[in-house]
């Protein structure tokens, strides 16, 4: 019969129409901004810089190695390396970025900077409501805007952040154990050379000393 196919199709749409009143499965539209879709842990938007502890500057993980700047495909990261150094999370003096800009009008959210960073300093954010009426300054994120705390990182990517913390704590413990061993060796040496107390003490890694008693701290 001519028109049978059309009727069959109409029956299908009728079913869907009626179904949308009873089955939640069929109501897929999320009424943004009143409603929001559930946050997906892996989702990524633009990168941000992680810092540990309460102070953004002191806890900044980035050591300004500029690997991300070099690997970023559209070249939207601009870093200016500091002349002086500040201690990083294990206490080793490192450079830090005096300027760290990401031009998010160019950034394509590819996550390559995150992958190549050897210091777990840069991670992907999940904030997407970044509309601005200033297409130049408004879309150029500087260091202050980029720095976000480790707690924030935990709140958006809990699994990944815990993993990173574990890795960092492990590394820190390793460095500390090494420093402790070195300190002990130096102390032994100093004791051995007690007869002739000369220049042994100042050379023996003094920076790591205060942290030495707690080898597995770090994971918050």
């Amino acid at each position, binding site marked *: 019969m*001519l028109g049978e196919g059309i009727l069959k199709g109409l029956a299908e749409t009728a079913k869907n129409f009626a179904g949308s009143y009873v089955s939640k499965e069929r109501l897929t539209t999320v009424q943004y901004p009143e409603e929001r879709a559930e946050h997906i842990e*892996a989702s990524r938007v633009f990168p941000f810089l992680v810092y540990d502890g309460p102070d953004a500057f002191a806890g900044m993980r980035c050591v300004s190695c500029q690997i991300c700047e070099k*690997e970023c495909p559209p070249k939207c990261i601009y870093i200016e390396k500091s002349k002086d150094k500040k201690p990083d999370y294990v206490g080793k003096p490192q450079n830090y970025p005096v300027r760290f800009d990401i031009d998010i009008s160019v950034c394509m959210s590819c996550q*390559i900077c995150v992958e190549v960073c050897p210091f777990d300093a840069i991670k992907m954010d999940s904030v997407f409501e970044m509309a601005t009426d200033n297409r130049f300054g408004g879309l150029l994120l500087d260091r202050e805007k980029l720095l976000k705390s480790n707690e924030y990182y935990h709140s958006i990517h809990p699994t990944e952040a815990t993993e990173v913390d574990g890795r960092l704590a492990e590394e820190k413990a390793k460095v500390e154990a090494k420093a402790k061993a070195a300190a002990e060796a130096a102390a032994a040496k100093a004791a051995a050379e007690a007869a002739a107390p000369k220049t042994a003490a100042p050379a023996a890694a003094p920076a790591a000393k205060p942290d030495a008693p707690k080898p597995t701290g770090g994971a918050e």
Partner: protein
Amino acid sequence: MTLSAAEFGARQHAGGKALPEGRMVIDPESGGDLLEVSMGPHHPSTHGVFRMDVALDGERIVRLKPVFGYLHRNHEKLGEEHSYLASMPYTDRLDYICSLTNNWAYALAVEKLVGQEVPERAEYLRLIVGELTRMQNHILSVGFLIQDMGASGTPLMYGFREREKILDLFEALTGSRMMCNYMRFGGCRVDATPEWLDGVRKVVAGMPAFADEFERLLCTNEILMARTQGVGVLRPELAVSAGVTGPALRASGVNYDIRKVDRYGIYDRFDFKVPLGEHGDVYDRFMIRLLELRQSIRILEQALKDVPGGPVMDPKAKIRNFRPKPGEAYGRIEAPKGELGFYLISDGTGNPYRYRVRPPSFVNLTVLEDMCLGYSVADVVLILGSIDIVLGEVDR
């Protein structure tokens, strides 16, 4: 602008194109004027920024010239300027509907270049995301085809509803819905959790019901059949000689599927069929996609039964300072739209010396004129939709 029939007719005859029976041949002697119409570049049904210069005799197409390049982003040259890894996110933007299969083809080419092996689990994940990509591409292309026909909304929205579930899975795994940037040379970037695999199982389990629904909705619809059957016929000889691949080729009855021919990845472990068309018309191309959807479900059902454990990345694979030895490689896969290939020449530095993409939509588009000659303007829109092109890939 009007042009004389004689001018175009003569050109048509000189080209020696044999038109199938039933199509109108313009007689250059008959006189009369032709109307030249520019369709696009912003016509809503042109799937991106694409223009067709058509010459019409009444309603009939006498000549059609595709004009593209509006979306040219210098992809290949950029590939030569960038490191191997940095091109990976750019491949997402070729055929932006199917970023994961683009990743796969590129990763395959580089792996061939350096002789890199891929761990078992990564192969499974690649296959799973690849087939999910094929499913959502076919759902979408059918939806858009029907939309082009004038059924605005309903079938396309049903398609979008299903595709949304797949995109959610992509986001949960890769972090992005469309620009996934997931595969690496020697594996995949992140591992899938058991919950994610359960999510895939759930979506795949719901797919046959959707395929049934879609088929009931569309396949026997009289209007659809009248509009698509016998329209835009692509003869198999022409398809083969023009290098057409993918569903468009198989709809013309040529049995050529790179998953079966090359058996790349782990496709040889699964049992699936290659659906073939008979007439090579728009209806066959539409049906092929629905049938391939079912085959993808079948592959996924088998693959999801036992996904092996283990690493997803070869631990020896390098991310930074990746410098292949001098040489060349061509890696290709059966992307949802056809044969997607990457050709790379390495000169031993960190950037490829030559980086070339063989995009399926671009090659499939070359037969557009031959498919359209003699049909009406309204059919052109359908025929274009049935090839399933994405301009990101055509223009690169």
